[in-house]
């Protein structure tokens, strides 16, 4: 969705991109059934991650710090996009449904840079932290974005909308982990 795609781009999307499945080719294990093979690969992958996590870099290279940075980048980019889109808004022209006129705003370009940055740090995070942990944690943005809309963008959010947002967040909290598991297999 609007904010959506961007956001999922960073979370859902990145998640899919870098799942251990991509490494299937590197494990030449003969497997009797597809499921058992995938399970083996996941287990092996988890072991590798654990080892890497034990001697994880300190300071700026700390995966948890990078996870925070990635979330912060997504968050800020959402606000920049909204601001940029408002700046150049021409709701009357049908062409503006395509959003291409949004490129006229420098804020949109900054947002694009931030999205790329968050993507890079997310890939880095996935080198150390399993998707089933990193993905649910990264859903923090879902809470921060509506709060930020209210505080920074001054959007007036009706009680009905707050209820809707709350339901979506509870639903996401329930499915975040199972979804991450599905994506590791996809």
């Amino acid at each position: 969705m609007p904010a959506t795609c961007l956001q999922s781009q960073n979370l859902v999307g990145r998640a899919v991109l870098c799942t251990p499945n991509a490494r299937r080719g590197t494990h030449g294990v003969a497997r009797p059934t597809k499921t058992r093979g995938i399970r083996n690969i996941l287990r092996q992958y988890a072991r590798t991650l654990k080892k890497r996590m034990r001697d994880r870099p300190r300071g700026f290279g700390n995966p948890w710090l990078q996870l925070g940075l990635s979330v912060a980048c997504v968050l800020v980019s959402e606000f920049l996009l909204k601001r940029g889109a408002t700046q150049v808004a021409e709701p009357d022209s049908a062409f503006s449904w395509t959003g291409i006129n949004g490129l006229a705003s420098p804020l949109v370009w900054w947002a694009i840079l931030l999205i790329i940055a968050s993507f890079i740090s997310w890939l880095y995070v996935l080198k150390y932290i399993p998707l089933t942990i990193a993905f649910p944690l990264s859903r923090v943005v879902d809470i921060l974005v509506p709060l930020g809309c209210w505080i920074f963008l001054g959007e007036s959010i009706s009680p009905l909308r707050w209820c809707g947002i709350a339901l979506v967040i509870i639903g996401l909290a329930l499915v975040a982990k199972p979804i991450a598991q599905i994506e590791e297999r996809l």
Partner: protein
Amino acid sequence: MSILAFFFIVVSLLSFVVAQLVLKRAMEVSATSGLRNSRFLSLIAIGTALMTVSFFLTLGLLQRFDLSYLYPFQGLSVIFITLTAAVVLKEKLSLRLIVGAVLISAGIVLVSMS
């Protein structure tokens, strides 16, 4: 919310989810047969194109609606993924996933009424 807006919201989300799946597939192909083959390149191109489509549709929507209105709709992408997994991977949906999906849908209905 107009039907047109809903249409664009769903198209933007769908193209996003499909782009992810295509890119994921591309990475799998690259793991087995390297980066320089036409299959990998075409998958990457399709994925990137879909990504771009969804990005610009989002920008178009942001010109018309509040961010706090549009943002909850991204929960739909999670539902799309669940459905894809159920269909493509023939997974049984757990109770947790179903309850979560129902809550997300209910929340989205409330948000679109606001």
